[in-house]
């Protein structure tokens, strides 16, 4: 049960390119119906340079000032501008952008790692890549007077969490692998971080219910101070009509903050809610 199957008109490219339609024309993907989930992407890039250039940056002797600080701010600014630069990229309300620059003296390069987060309907890897790219360009710009041989390389997505495709991570041998997140605690941590300070409830689904819904985790915005578990379920059914049957199962179990709970239990912002079928361990 994918989100795509719900689209009334199938105008998708037959080979799976999401930004080109069946007629071969560029188009922005309609994400109106996609679930709001906590999303996160990590990207990296490298700027290789002469040892002397790197030494100058690290020691703070560069005449343009603190190169690393400027590149870091440039990366953060760039993440916010991604939708203006990449034609078919959706504008996003980022909730977190982090850019870290690490001088690697032994390799004569600076490593840039970026992290972008939001609770939304589309992924943030383009923002993470843009932040890494612009931080790298800024390093080049600030140092080009002393070193024109600098090389920007290795710009890539390292990790992606949230949304339909779940948790994806670049394998250590550089080949991409799809990871099963059903038991990965990492997704739980991502949820907790993303919900802090925002008025959403994170809802998780397990086992047969997760498969029936095609969703492992979703953020539900709270429009009042608290809701009951029954009301959270109603909100989910209102926003996903095709979930009604699976979520209406009489024997469904529920938990709030990892404690079994009844349908009348109160749920507050930042809580972790889960729905799952009767347990069958032992």
């Amino acid at each position: 049960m994918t989100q795509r199957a719900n689209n009334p008109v199938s105008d998708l490219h037959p080979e799976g390119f999401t930004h080109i339609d069946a007629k071969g024309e560029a188009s922005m993907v309609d994400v109106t119906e996609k679930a709001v989930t906590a999303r996160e992407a990590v990207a990296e890039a490298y700027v290789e340079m002469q040892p002397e250039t790197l030494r100058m940056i690290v020691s703070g002797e560069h005449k343009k000032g603190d190169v690393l600080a400027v590149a870091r701010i440039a990366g953060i600014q760039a993440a916010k501008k991604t939708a203006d630069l990449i034609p078919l990229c959706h504008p996003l309300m980022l909730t977190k952008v982090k850019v870290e620059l690490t001088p690697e003296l032994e390799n004569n390069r600076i490593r840039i790692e970026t992290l972008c987060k939001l609770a939304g309907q589309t992924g943030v890897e383009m923002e993470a890549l843009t932040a890494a790219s612009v931080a790298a360009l800024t390093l080049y710009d600030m140092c080009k007077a002393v070193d024109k041989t600098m090389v920007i390389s290795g710009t890539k997505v390292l990790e992606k969490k949230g949304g339909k495709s779940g948790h994806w991570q670049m394998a250590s041998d550089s080949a991409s692998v799809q990871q099963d997140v059903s038991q990965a605690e990492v997704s739980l941590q991502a949820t907790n971080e993303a919900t802090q300070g925002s008025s959403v409830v994170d809802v998780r689904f397990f086992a047969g219910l997760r498969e029936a819904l095609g969703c492992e985790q979703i953020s539900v915005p709270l429009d009042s101070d608290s809701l009951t578990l029954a009301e959270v379920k109603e909100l989910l059914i209102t926003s996903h009509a095709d979930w009604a049957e699976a979520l209406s199962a009489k024997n469904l179990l529920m938990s709030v903050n990892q404690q079994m709970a009844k349908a009348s239990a109160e749920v507050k912002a930042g809580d972790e809610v889960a729905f799952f079928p009767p347990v069958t361990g032992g």
Partner: protein
Amino acid sequence: MSCQIHISVQEAEFDLSAVNRAISADRTDIGAIVTFSGLVRDFNEKPDVLALTLEHYPGMTEQALEEIAQEAAERWPLQAVHVIHRVGRLTPGDPIVLVAVASAHRQAAFDGCNFVMDFLKTRAPFWKKENTRHGDYWVSERSSDAAAARRWKEGDV
């Protein structure tokens, strides 16, 4: 003397005799250790079970097992409760769960072990998916498990 509680949810196989040794190490007041080992059967709702995959809710599962063990220790004079439950892919014949309960006298250890298993079956978030020759399916709950857990409430044991 307080009850020693040990909970583990793991992919690795467990060693029954090592658990027994760990429970009785450095003490001589234990009179009985009752252990229950659950194994993967090759038949269940459908015949020809080739393998099963166990899913759990990291965090909540461990907490639920801890609470069940605590409750057993409140009901009977227990010296130790160890619960090990495996997750991931298992094949018929593989050990899947171990409950070891120690007490000064056998009756409390038998009852405590029985109680922990009954509640593990109905309260701890684990889900089994069976892979059979006829396809994969999620195992459904058994009413006999719910009934077994209920009898502890009714006090007719």
